């Protein structure tokens, strides 16, 4: 008996149960147990929305990059800043790696949730599934449209990848735009036509049918112009897109804010109409509520970049002076156009409309005398950016939304779509709404008669595309659209607009790039030879 006891004891000491080695995390979920309920699906969808906010360093932001490479801005910033290279389309090791990564991260999250929707138990709520699917497909289309416009040649990924699929080659542009078209078609067909007034406030920022139509128009115009195609890769014809835009204009309930100044916080802090106003068809949301946590990427991290370098000048908050605004843009506005001062800060008092701000920083690169007013960080007093007063970090937590699709943009796209084979009177009407608002007809600053007698109006014809392009430049300045409007008009138009050399301010477009940015070197190196560098960047 004693022997057995000792044996048992020894065996006991030397044995172990398999559970001992099964460890699961306490602070995260495990994929096998998730994506089961509609609320799981919602969390997956939110993660895809979160992809819109990711901004690894503030420099690698779509708006900022797009404006610097356009004729609107110089790189600016400090002498050591990475954006220097963008003015001359210069190579800088891996300069676009963060933004490349950001977009594919968003695409991954959208693909992932799309792949999981089938497995969710929706119960009776099949409409919810279609809605989530439409939202995720819209987001995927949004990510691809930005990527394809920036880089031209991008791999097309529509499912979560397995390791053997990491080395996907670049897809033909037609395939990418076809996917964009189909994704948007699904969204347009499946989302309800809820007018602006009926959209619950709590859902502002969510994708709507109107947003899908707006993005579709953007995709259509870029693709058909840049690639000289008759339709959106066989998915949408011009007439179909035009009808959808008309439908939006007639039925969405969106309208222009009367005074263009009130659209932008720092242009009119007291009378600012706020975010999600009646002109905001779709916006990317930001908040100060990460409270300095740089991993959250909830803030508009890029905003600090364009602020006045190293100083506060009420109501303009402190920043890094990146993307100094070109004098050309300032002078492109006619006298009387309220958009000039609503969009741009002129520091020099000698300039008409100049605000007499002395920039004290000695290391402001490419000082032009002009800074962004749209999106400028806001400082109600001389002490802090408002972000700081709200508890955030002035570098990370600026919070102004980026209204990616604005009703004014819709109107101008509508006008453009009607120029060619559409209804010219509609084009004129859409165009006039935007332009009259700019000169103050809508808010009563001037009357229609004054507008006409001063010759502010422009009459459109079928060949007025360049007029609309110029109007887009003025209306949508510093909102990230200009560069793509330029390159879709062709390389010579882009070069003519962008090339600049005056008073030491130099900007040079490289036509051999075909307007596309450099594919990140690290990604090419990692691609097993499947990624090919864009021309002009080798």
């Amino acid at each position, binding site marked *: 008996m004693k022997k057995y006891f000792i044996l048992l004891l020894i065996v006991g000491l030397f044995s172990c149960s398999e559970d001992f*080695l099964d460890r699961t995390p306490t602070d995260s979920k495990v994929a096998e147990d998730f994506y089961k309920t509609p609320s799981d699906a919602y969390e997956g969808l939110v993660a895809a929305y979160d992809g819109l906010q990711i901004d690894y360093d503030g420099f690698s932001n779509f708006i900022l990059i797009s404006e610097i490479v356009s004729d609107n801005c110089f790189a600016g910033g400090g002498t*050591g800043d990475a954006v220097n290279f963008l003015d001359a389309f210069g190579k800088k090791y891996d300069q676009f790696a963060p933004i490349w990564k950001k977009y594919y991260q968003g695409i991954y999250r959208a693909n992932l949730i799309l792949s999981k929707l089938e497995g969710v138990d929706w119960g009776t709520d099949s409409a919810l599934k279609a809605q989530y699917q439409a939202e995720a497909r819209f987001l995927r289309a949004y990510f691809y449209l930005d990527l394809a416009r920036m880089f031209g040649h991008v791999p097309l990924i529509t499912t979560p*990848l397995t390791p053997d699929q990491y080395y996907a080659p670049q897809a033909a542009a037609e395939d990418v735009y076809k996917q964009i078209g189909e994704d948007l078609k699904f969204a347009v067909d499946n989302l309800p036509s809820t007018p602006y007034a009926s959209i619950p406030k709590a859902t502002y920022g969510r994708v709507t049918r109107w947003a899908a139509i707006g993005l579709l128009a953007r995709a259509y115009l870029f693709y058909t112009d840049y690639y000289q195609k008759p339709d959106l890769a066989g998915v949408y014809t011009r007439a179909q897109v035009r009808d959808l835009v008309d439908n939006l204009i007639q039925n969405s309930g969106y309208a222009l804010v009367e005074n263009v100044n009130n659209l932008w916080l720092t242009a009119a802090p007291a009378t600012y109409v706020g975010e999600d106003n009646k002109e905001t068809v779709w916006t990317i949301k930001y908040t100060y509520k990460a409270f300095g946590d740089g991993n959250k990427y909830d803030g508009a991290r890029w905003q600090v970049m364009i602020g006045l370098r190293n100083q506060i000048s009420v109501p303009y908050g*402190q920043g890094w002076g990146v993307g100094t605004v070109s004098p050309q843009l300032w002078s492109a506005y006619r006298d009387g156009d309220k958009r000039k001062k609503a969009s741009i800060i002129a520091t020099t008092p000698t300039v008409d409309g100049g605000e007499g701000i002395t920039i004290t920083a000695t290391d402001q690169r490419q000082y032009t005398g002009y800074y962004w007013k749209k999106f400028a960080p806001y400082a109600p007093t001389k002490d802090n950016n408002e972000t700081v007063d709200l508890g955030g970090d002035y570098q990370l937590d600026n919070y102004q939304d980026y209204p990616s699709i604005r009703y004014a943009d819709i109107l101008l796209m509508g006008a453009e779509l009607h120029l060619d084979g559409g209804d010219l009177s509609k084009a004129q009407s859409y165009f006039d709404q935007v332009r009259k608002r700019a000169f103050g007809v809508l808010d009563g600053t001037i009357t229609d008669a004054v507008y006409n007698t001063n010759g502010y109006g422009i009459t459109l014809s079928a060949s007025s595309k360049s007029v609309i392009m110029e109007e887009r430049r003025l209306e949508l300045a510093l909102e990230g659209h200009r560069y793509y409007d330029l390159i879709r008009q062709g390389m010579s138009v882009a070069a003519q607009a962008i090339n600049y050399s005056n008073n030491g301010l130099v900007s040079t477009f490289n036509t051999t790039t075909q307007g596309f940015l450099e594919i990140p070197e690290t990604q090419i190196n990692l691609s097993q030879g499947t990624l090919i560098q864009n021309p002009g960047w080798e």
Partner: protein
Amino acid sequence: MRMRDVYRTLHVSVILLLLACTAVYAQQRAVTGTVKDPSGTPMPGVNVVIKGTTTGTVTDVNGNFTINAGENDVLVVSFIGYKPQDVAVGTQTNIGVELADDLTTLGEVVVVGYGVQDKKVVTGATVAVKTDDLMKTNSLQLGQALQGQTPGVQITSTSGQPGEPLKVRIRGTGTLGDSEPLYLVDGVPTTDISYLNSANIERIDVLKDAASAAIYGARGANGVVLITTKKGKAGSSLITFDAYYGVQNAYRKLPMLNAQEYAVIMNEASINSGVSPLYSPEQIGKLKTTDWQDQIFTKNAPMQNYSLGFSGGSENSTFSSAMSYFSQDGIAGGPSKKSYFDRMTLTINSQHKVFKDYVKFGENLTYSNVKKSGVAVNGIYSNALRPFLIASPVMPVYDETTGDYAKSPVAITEVNPAAYFNYNNINKTVTDKLVGDIYLEGQYKGFTLRSDFGSDLSFNEYRDFGPEYELTPNVRNTVSYVNQNMSRVLRWNWDNTLRYNTTLNEKHNIEVLVGTTAQQLGNTFVNARKEGLTFNDFDHAVLNNGTSDSTITVTGNSSISYSIYSYFGRVNYNFNEKYLFSATIRRDGSSNFGSNNRYATFPSVSAGWVLSEESFLQAIPQINFLKMRASWGQNGNDRIVPYAYMATLGSQYRDYYFGSGEDKAVGTSPTRLPNPDLKWETSEQIDIGLDATVFNDFIVSVDFYNKKTKDWLVVAPIPDLAGADAPWVNGGDIRNRGVEIQLGYNHKFGDLSVGVNGNVAFNQNEVTRIANTEGIIHGDVNVLFNNMDELNRAQVGFPVGYFYGLQTAGIFQNQEEIAAYSKNGKEIQPDAQPGDVKFVDRDGDGAITAADKTKIGNPNPNVTYGFNFNLAYKGFDFSVYTYGMGGQQNVVGYHPYDTWYANYTTDVLGRWHGEGTSNSIPRVTRGDEKNGNYKKFSDLYVQDASFLRIKSINLGYDFTKLLPSLPFKQFRVYVSANNLFTFTKYKGLDPEVGFSPQTTGSLGTQNTQGGLYNAVAGYNMTSGIDVGFYPQPRTFMAGVSIKL
């Protein structure tokens, strides 16, 4: 044998026997005696037995014994832990016996995994450092005691800050992740040994080859360091007291430009950059210099240590207890002493026989309390020293009129480093730690069953405080804050072993060991931050004083994240201590891998041949001992973040705020791409060695090894289009091979004993595989300053973490040279101006591009060595310990070339400023020259960092030799100096730079587990990047070491 012969033999024997008996009987009488230990202390409980009989006695409390013995008898005097001694009785009536320490248990054994082994029969490559050497070097940290004493063990400080970890590499960097060895303190695995006081350490054994470490299979891949704390000895009692006090200083300062030199250089840089000069000659004359380094380096920073130990015991129980206090101020703590380390320890070790000789019970426990505060030492942004090395010397510390910290007269963006230092680096960590084990051991007829439970339990609290300040428009803190963190970490292990020892036919010595070990790691932490404090000082910086409701941040977790379970077995066999053989097998299961790859088996074999036991060598008296040995084995490594194989989902950092921006929607997506096939990393090593003692006094030991680490656990970069953080993979192979030589000479010339010991190790490190197509894992960018390319990488065919950049070929002296440097009529550097750097166009494409980059330096030393010298004469002792490293380079990165007003070292005075003035240092500019003299990482940054350091010099005298009547066994008074000289060509503050940026690869957030995975969160693949390094101090100290 014939019958007659048989009878004759028998007859003779009987007569002899009778004679003997008669003699014994006739002369039996009482013999008395006293037994003392080597220090002269009487030993109670010592066995005294007449040889060949069972007649015996035991000494009393005064060490005395009485026994009836005859003149021809031989007494065998024995006691555990001492060499048994035979004493012929002869005519003596009062016998004095002094027992010598048994070298089999003290000097000549080697601690191996789960036991000790006679050094003579060890077949693996191990090296030991014993208490004397530990004590004499008075090392600030335990690990530093190993520096220079153990060939093949490369130890580099990651910072001279008190209590900072050391970087320990055994036989080279074996992996990109955690390359630290496994530490076991009395068998308890732990990751940090800074809680130990060297006075409590009996010995440190380092297991270097795979066969020695194989019994620890899991986690033994980077070598094993076994630390044994002091144990009591039966029959003795000992009180020890050690104390020292020392002062520390920086051993060198960087020679920075003074105000006048600075002004000249700034003027010249401005002119070269097309800006008007800043200073007129008249202004230059009036400038006053601030020596900023005086503001950070503390003069005569104190360091002190007191330890008191008691040990002793009887045959049945032994104990050793000690308490100690150690405190050290850092030399870079500034005027407010923000860098310090205070440690109190209490050790209780004891062992008891609880059932005759069959069952023993014991425990080793060390409690420590550490209080420390540190200044930031990493990188370019959070680095307390760096601002002091680059601040302009024309800025005063304080404003003369206001008395506040002065603003820079040079640029509004320049920060006053003293002010910045004062407002930052305000923190304190308190750690209570209990490390120890309890064990029960049963012995019966050669079988030993042992069950040992160990734990490493620590409680940490941390606070830091940020006051409000505004130094420049962007260096400011507008609202005060406090961070408070509490954590509890428990790592336990339960080891059960069964051992069987036997000797067959007096020649076959066999030991068989089987066992299991289970280990688990769990931790809990809570971390919170609050802003808007109602007090403005550190003492009141607690969460309760935070007033801002909107900015409270709280994180916390509680989990058991890691466990392993292993079976192992070992056979040691030797034939007559001549032919030696050992085999080990271990099967490890780790929770870090999926059930498909959870278990792995790690075998090893080793063999030795003691040639000196062979008759053909016994004829050569000059060869006292000669052994050849060889081993092969595999070890595993599972040190990665937990759950890496699983598809875990995160909700942190995936929020989106819909609506008016107030309502948070929580998002969830995978944190990292899973890799269900993740498996153990394996290191496989061959070792061939030789140990010899010749001419009685010379010791030689040589080892050759080839260590291959296969299937590195690494986050190998994958294309970003995969869309989530890269998975952990078994991503590459690395090879370290080398030679280690140890030589010693120890001899006594009468009263003079001399010891000279030296060792040298050569190691060659090469990456042999990386599991992505380019075969490269890139280093970080922006390491030296913003907007700088990667400067190091791991690449197939190169040493891990090598420096990667452009080669230079001097300075362009004039326009002609620029024009002449052309290819096919096109200038290679069209943007260059005279005075700019000429880069080598390695690929010959007529332009300087990334393709021209190559290996321009290696942070891994190819030789490490140490040389130690001991002299003792009567009561005096004198020793010198040195160590050095050679063949490695550092990147000199303390000047930020993107900050035009940063100060330079006086080296810049030798810059190019006209034809023929320099061919090595380019012209100064404001950093905007198109040539990119310093913006491109090149060999201009790389400097030889080989060094030889006099680690310590000690001189002591033992007063018991002068005054034998003193009641002390030892009363040694000594003076010593640490880091007295460092011989190096390196120009930075300290050539021994262990810092490397933590290349985060695709891993997003680091260290969210309460500090547990520091080393594995990123690739710690390089070393030697000097961006302003906290240097090791030079210390002078005096102390006393008393034994009673």
